[in-house]
């Protein structure tokens, strides 16, 4: 007590507990109810087991809530390939524990623990109850069975199991209850009988017994009526023997009347219905006996319930009936499947193909197959023919390939046998063949031929054994072998000879349409050989051969037949010869062709030329000026610069191709610059009257002005050069050189122009002189022409109609009087397209181009009245003078009017092209004043040839003059030419 008192007390002590008072338990709120496992950890029921208290606050989920699975993958961190989800992913740790649904601890394997095996097999614990009680002296499971357990079943057991057998069941088809009962009884009885009576007395006794059992069992019939479909595995029993199969059903097929008891019963009770009715009664009893134990497992077990183990018990839905109707067929189906003892991996053959039976055909005794397509004559029985054939065949076989032609002595000699050895002489069979028959029967021959060949092949085999036997007798094996070889060789030779004979015989015969009638066939053959043409000949020929017995009609028929047959059955080399050729002939022909030297083909060189416009860039890269200054017309379809085909190309070419537009590619500006110099009157020529000169000057200006107002859409050459160029388009390239030449020579010939100035003195009138001087000095003319040059709109065209009549005299006079060599003679044709001319014309033209200085057109200036006011106002007095001059000139013209000029006429522009040459020639004559035109032409030619000699060889060659072409022709004789050429080359090097 002192101790206690001395102690200090701190705090307030708990109230002392009264002994009887128990502290009141507070009922736990739902949210406080937490399930804990054996370790005190909170238990979470997984997705599979989800109970009433599962999850957070008895809900599915957790405090954090339910989060779906996420998938995240980035370039840096690649998501691992989707793992296969396993059931473990959805399980708790507890599930994997020892007592969980998927324990992972170390346990006894199922095959070593009996209970587990059972459970595994049945899947249900209650199946344990279905295990048959084992009857033995000692109740319970035998002790030894506990101790010693085979790990694996025997093979037979396993097979049976795979077929649906379970330990404790009997083997055999499933039985209805009644059947089972009957079988049971029968088994017992049989066993009993066997024990007591043995196998002999069984049938009769059995029947009696069975009948008795049937009677006894008949009581149940009514009850078991419905039980037909519910089958059971048969009880296990000791099979005693097997009855032989008596019925024709398929293997393991059990028909309805299989059971002998039922058949018995039906016989015993004639009024009793069929088996199924009996069984029908069985069904009624079934509901009473069978109780489907449906327990509340399907709804799960609460976490607090003790029967936690059964949560995972599988409750198969097939155990429930969903309707009354579909029960029957379903069960039947199962039964059917079960009745067929099909091993896993095999399936039943449903095709039934194996059942098809090959039928043995019963042929009539005297049936002989025959080819009905084969023709034969009406009267001939086939049999004889066949026998003949057969005979022939056999005969041939018999005669063999010459082996039988040898007599035994010869044979012995061949084989090296002693004559004394064997004397069993076979009756000799000479080849008594009917040669006619043999030769004539094609089929026979073919058969024989094939046989012969096979025989030939066989000969060696046949002989070799002989050789072996002989070798035994003979001492020297080598000598023997040689002999054998020789023998073989001779035999084979003979065989070859025979077969060759056959082969040659076959085609000679051809078709034998009348084989049946030998005589007829013979006649036919001779008929064929005769090769008669006319009808009369044939009749005569046949009449000689045909027997007298033949009627006239028959003869006629035969003739027709023969002719027909000859047509149809022509021998192979008649009908088919023209269609088929043997390989050898083909080859031979081929070789012949090859050997034949290739025919000399004459190579004729052809040269054609065409315009081709090189691309400007190409010219640039080649460092060559573009031909024609790049003014060549592009070929219409050229896709230059855009090789990719565009749809617009086609549009362009189809609708408005470039060729349709004739643009003046050469601008007159360039060409007119030299004009002033050109206008200077040529030497030794009387100056044209000033009024004639004036228009010359104004002309270019006018032309310029005229251009926009051009009536013609097409390009009209204005200057001679233009004209020439224009002309050259149509010309071949070689002739363009003329043009160039003319261009270049123009400049040369312009040189004498200054010299021409003294000629002014010869001018008739002071006005002319003045004008000429002015011209020479490049001063504007004082005449009205200068004024008119201002008139841009002046019509420069040659006068027509009245004007033509008016000015004709002057114009025509002038060339004579003032034969100023026109610089560009064909200027009047400027506005024309000059058509292609002959070479002479062109030469002349060239000449003109060279000589022409003053356009003829310009000479007839006096369009002055048209010029209008400005000209008049400027120089009224000159006008007056002009009139006077005009009158004079007119007068002069009328005096001297040359005859040949009369032809020249001014006509409409378009028609002028034909007059062109005329005017040219006239201008020529006028320029020369002395020489007649043919002489002139000659002269030009000469001068030309001179010029050409100076020119480069290439241009010379490319000319197309006749002369040149002749030269070419010469040069084409290559052998002559090539040599000097080569020499030239040599000298080069």
């Amino acid at each position, binding site marked *: 007590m002192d101790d206690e008192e001395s102690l200090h007390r701190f705090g307030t002590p708990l109230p002392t507990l009264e002994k009887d008072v128990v502290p009141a338990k507070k009922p736990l709120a739902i949210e406080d109810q937490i399930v804990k496992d054996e370790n005190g950890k909170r238990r979470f029921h997984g997705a599979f087991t989800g109970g009433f208290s599962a999850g957070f606050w008895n809900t599915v989920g957790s405090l954090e809530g339910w989060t779906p699975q996420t998938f995240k993958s980035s370039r840096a961190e690649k998501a691992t390939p989707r793992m296969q989800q396993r059931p473990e992913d959805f399980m708790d740790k507890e599930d994997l524990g020892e007592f969980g649904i998927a324990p992972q601890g170390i346990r006894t394997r199922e095959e070593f623990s009996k209970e587990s095996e059972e459970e595994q097999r049945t899947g249900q614990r209650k199946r344990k109850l279905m295990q048959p009680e084992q009857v033995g002296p000692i109740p319970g499971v035998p002790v030894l069975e506990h101790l010693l357990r085979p790990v694996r079943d025997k093979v037979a057991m396993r097979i049976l199991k795979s077929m649906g057998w379970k330990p404790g069941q009997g083997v055999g088809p499933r039985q209805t209850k009644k059947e089972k009962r009957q079988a049971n009884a029968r088994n017992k009885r049989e066993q009993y009988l066997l024990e007591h009576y043995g196998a002999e007395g069984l049938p009769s006794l059995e029947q009696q017994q069975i009948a008795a059992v049937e009677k006894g069992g008949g009581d149940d019939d009514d009850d078991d009526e419905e039980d037909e479909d519910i089958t059971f595995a048969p009880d296990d029993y000791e099979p005693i023997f097997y009855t032989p199969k008596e019925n024709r059903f398929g293997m393991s097929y059990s028909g309805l009347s299989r059971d002998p008891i039922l058949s018995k019963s039906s016989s015993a009770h004639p009024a009793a219905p069929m088996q199924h009715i009996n069984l029908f009664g069985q069904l009624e009893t079934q509901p009473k006996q069978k109780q489907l134990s449906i327990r509340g497992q399907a709804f799960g077990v609460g976490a607090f319930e003790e029967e936690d183990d059964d949560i995972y018990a599988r409750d198969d839905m097939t155990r429930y009936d969903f309707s009354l109707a579909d029960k029957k067929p379903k069960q039947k189906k199962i039964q059917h499947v079960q009745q067929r003892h099909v091993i896993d991996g095999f399936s039943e053959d449903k095709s039934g193909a194996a059942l098809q039976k090959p039928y043995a055909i019963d042929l009539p005794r005297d049936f002989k197959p025959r080819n009905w397509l084969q023709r034969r004559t009406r009267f001939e029985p086939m049999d004889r023919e066949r026998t003949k054939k057969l005979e022939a065949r056999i005969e041939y076989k018999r005669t063999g390939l010459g082996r039988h032609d040898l007599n035994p002595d010869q044979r012995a000699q061949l084989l090296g046998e002693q004559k004394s050895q064997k004397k069993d002489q076979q009756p000799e069979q000479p080849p008594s063949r009917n040669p006619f028959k043999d030769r004539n029967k094609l089929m026979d021959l073919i058969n024989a031929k094939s046989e012969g060949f096979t025989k030939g092949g066989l000969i060696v085999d046949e002989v070799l054994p002989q050789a072996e036997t002989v070798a035994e007798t003979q001492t020297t094996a080598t000598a023997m072998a040689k002999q054998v070889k020789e023998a073989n060789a001779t035999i084979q030779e003979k065989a070859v000879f025979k077969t060759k004979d056959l082969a040659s015989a076959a085609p000679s015969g051809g078709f034998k349409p009348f084989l049946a009638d030998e005589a007829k066939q013979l006649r036919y053959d001779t008929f064929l050989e005769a090769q008669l043409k006319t009808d009369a000949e044939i009749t005569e020929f046949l009449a000689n051969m045909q027997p007298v017995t033949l009627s006239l009609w028959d003869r006629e028929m035969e003739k027709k037949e023969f002719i027909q047959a000859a047509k149809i059955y022509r021998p192979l080399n008649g009908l088919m010869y023209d269609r088929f050729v043997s390989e050898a002939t083909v080859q031979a022909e081929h070789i012949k062709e090859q050997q034949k030297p290739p025919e000399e083909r004459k190579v004729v060189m*052809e040269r054609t030329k065409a315009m081709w416009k*090189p691309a400007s860039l*190409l010219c640039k890269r080649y460092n060559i000026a573009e031909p024609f200054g790049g003014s*060549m017309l592009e070929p219409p379809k050229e896709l230059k610069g855009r*090789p990719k085909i565009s749809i617009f190309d086609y549009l362009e070419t189809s609708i408005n191709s470039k060729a349709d537009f004739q643009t003046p590619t050469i601008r007159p500006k360039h060409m007119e610059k030299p004009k002033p110099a050109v206008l200077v009157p040529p030497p030794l020529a009387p100056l044209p009257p000033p009024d004639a000169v004036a228009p010359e000057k104004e002309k270019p200006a006018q032309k310029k002005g005229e251009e926009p107002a051009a009536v013609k859409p097409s390009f009209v050459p204005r200057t001679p050069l233009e004209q020439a160029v224009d002309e050259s388009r149509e010309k071949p390239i070689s002739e363009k050189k003329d043009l160039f030449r003319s261009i270049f020579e123009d400049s040369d010939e312009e040189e004498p122009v200054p010299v021409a100035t003294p000629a002014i003195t010869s001018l008739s009138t002071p006005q002319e002189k003045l004008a000429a001087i002015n011209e020479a000095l490049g001063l504007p003319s004082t005449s009205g022409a200068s004024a008119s040059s201002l008139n841009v709109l002046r019509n420069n065209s040659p006068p027509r109609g009245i004007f033509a009549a008016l000015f004709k005299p002057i114009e025509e006079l002038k060339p004579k009087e003032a034969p100023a060599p026109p610089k560009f003679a064909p200027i009047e044709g400027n506005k024309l397209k000059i058509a292609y001319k002959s070479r002479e014309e062109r030469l002349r033209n060239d000449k003109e181009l060279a000589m022409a200085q003053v356009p003829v057109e310009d000479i007839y200036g006096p369009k002055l009245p048209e010029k209008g006011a400005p000209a008049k106002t400027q120089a009224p007095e000159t006008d007056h003078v002009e009139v006077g001059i005009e009158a004079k000139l007119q007068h002069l013209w009328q005096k001297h009017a040359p005859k040949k000029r009369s032809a020249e006429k001014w006509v409409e522009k378009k028609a002028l092209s034909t007059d062109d040459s005329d005017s040219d020639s006239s201008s020529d004559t006028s320029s020369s004043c002395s020489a007649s035109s043919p002489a002139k032409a000659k002269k030009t030619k000469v001068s030309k040839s001179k010029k050409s000699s100076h020119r480069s060889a290439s241009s010379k060659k*490319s000319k197309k003059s006749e002369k040149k072409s002749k030269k070419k022709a010469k040069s*084409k004789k290559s052998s002559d*030419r090539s040599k000097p*050429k080569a020499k030239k080359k040599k000298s080069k090097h």
Partner: protein
Amino acid sequence: MPAFANYHCKTTIDCQQGAVRAVRYNVDGSYCLSCGSDKKVKLWNPATGLLLKTYGGHADEVTDVAGSCDSSYIVSSSLDKSIIYWDVSTGTPVRRLRCHAGGVRCVCFNEDSSIAISGGRDNVVMCWDIRTRRLDPVQVMKDARDCITTVLTNENKIYAASLDGCIRHYDIRVGEMICDKIGEPITYLARTQDEQCLVAGCQDSVVRLIDCETGGLLSEYKGHQADDYHIECGILANDAHIVAGSSAGDAYIWDLLEGKVLQRIRISDNGGVVHSLATHPSRSEELLFARRRDMYVFTTDLQIEEEQL
């Protein structure tokens, strides 16, 4: 006329590029080029048989090759419808030009190598401005009616031989196209050094000498077998001998004037078509032949002969 000396094989080069489709000398004949069916072009030293460079980049067999005038570029044509402009030293393709609609058969440079001219199975001759980056042809000549087998050029003309049996001269200076029709498919065209004549190898196993100016047939050379092969011909640098391959594994040399066979060069005893050849641009003593996978250098040098003996 220079005396003819027989040719002897100096070097045999196994090109190791499949079948050799063409052999060509460069501009001065110091190097040679071979085109292979393995899509490669190889540059060789013909004297030593040394492989200098391989140019790979074509997508199909290379059919022809030409070196530029400064030997710094190569242009090659291929059945892949393109031509490639190569840099010789680096071996890289500078430009690849595709416009042909068919395989390109032949290619050449103009004199200053500013224009490459190609002819192909699409019957078209194309001129390429190869120095610029222009990828379109400068000019396209579509006159031929069959495959172009050879294109040649000089300072003002372009020659194109075609299987339609025509030689077409495109005269840039005059602006005209001259078509010389032989009538036999022309498999190859060569030109004499003096540019006066053309040597046309025809399909009918005849080599024809044609006058450029007149288009006349000057001579014919026969004896070899062309069969159906693209047999090439050539004229030696001295303009005195004509050479052509043959399908029977040999080559023929004719006298230009007399047209008789001077030498039948047996290149191989076991066949093989001698389809391509190249004549040295300046030395008439050197020849190149192509047969199967090999390239043969032939020469008349006696030293070699002695060495061989």
